[in-house]
């Protein structure tokens, strides 16, 4: 069965859909190298003008946070409700704030 494996690395693909917007993750693909990954990303993810710029990143180079750390990472933000403007009560007469 090993001959059936090509072992081309996995690349994550990010596309800028139009000027003015950031690149956004769209999926992944396999390719032998970066140049081929860009070419494949063009064929797989932008057949209908979905993009004006492509990033490809080797999947193994991505460090991701773990869902198990959610509490440590995101919960403290919940304590600081004063970061939201609605925390502050203003008299009705005050406009444009």
């Amino acid at each position: 069965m090993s001959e059936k494996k090509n072992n081309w690395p996995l690349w994550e693909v990010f596309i800028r859909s139009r000027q003015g917007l950031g690149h956004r993750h769209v999926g992944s693909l396999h390719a032998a190298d970066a140049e081929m990954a860009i070419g494949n990303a063009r064929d797989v993810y932008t057949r209908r003008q979905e993009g004006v710029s492509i990033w490809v990143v080797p999947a193994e180079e991505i460090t991701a946070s773990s869902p198990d750390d959610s509490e440590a990472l995101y919960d403290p933000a919940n304590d600081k409700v004063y970061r939201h403007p609605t925390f502050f009560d203003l008299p009705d007469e005050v406009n444009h704030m």
Partner: protein
Amino acid sequence: MVVSQEQLTKQFNAYVADDKKIEPKDWMPDAYRKTLVRQISQHAHSEIIGMLPEGAWITRAPSLKRKAILLAKVQDEAGHGLYLYSACETLGVERDDLVADLLSGKAKYSSIFNYPSKTWADIGAIGWLVDGAAIMNQVPLCRCSYGPYARAMVRVCKEESFHQRQGYTIMMELMKGTKEQRDMAQDALNRWWWPSLMMFGPSDKDSKHSAQSMSWNIKRFSNDELRQRMVDMTVPQAELIGLKIPDPDLKWNEKKGGYDFGEINWDEFYEVIAGNGPCNEERLEARNKAHDDGEWVRKAAMAYAEKH
């Protein structure tokens, strides 16, 4: 704190029941992961094998316009397969293993592609009915509980309606043509109608995975519900262009607001799944040949990448 599997599963079930999404690194029960790997990989394989009956007509399409359209359509199917393999890999499986399972015959794909495409009208019938049934199945999957699968389905569904329209307009054009052309369209409908209805899977009472998939919000509607919708949607489309649905039992049922239709030949359905359809062997042979013929290209690309 150690949480038991049982507790985790309970939390998970409540979470998905609340219509929330699961992402790749989230905890999920093994059975959920297995179900998704099976369903998404079968779906991907279907897209890939689905290129074969249509690909056979690219060189024989009746005009340059139709050739270009069919080529684009078949390329989309390849793309759909790749979106789906990509989604499947987020569950911790390797693409090469999935592909190997397809090539060895271990993995299943949609039985519809084990029927032959005999005439140009078959390309019309496939786009209209097979892609039509696929849309019916896939639109609810855009809301599936597993994020990467749902997102892949959104992309697929956006592209799929072009496929159905290109098929229906082939049928329309043929029905405006000579008697021979109209007969060809009718013959294609006669052969593809029942297999298209089989695409929704076994009847609800015999579907072993349905209930669990529905409770996990992978599946939103039952096989029979979707099949009924397909019939209700397609019958008027056939009538409009003068085609006759090959079912003597087909009758509008005012009370249920839908059509009653004849019994599906389930023996045929299970025979084709078991590998005894008209083209099962041919499809796998063609797929294996394409894979083997591409071997040197894959190796050369890898060798080039390692060198540079």
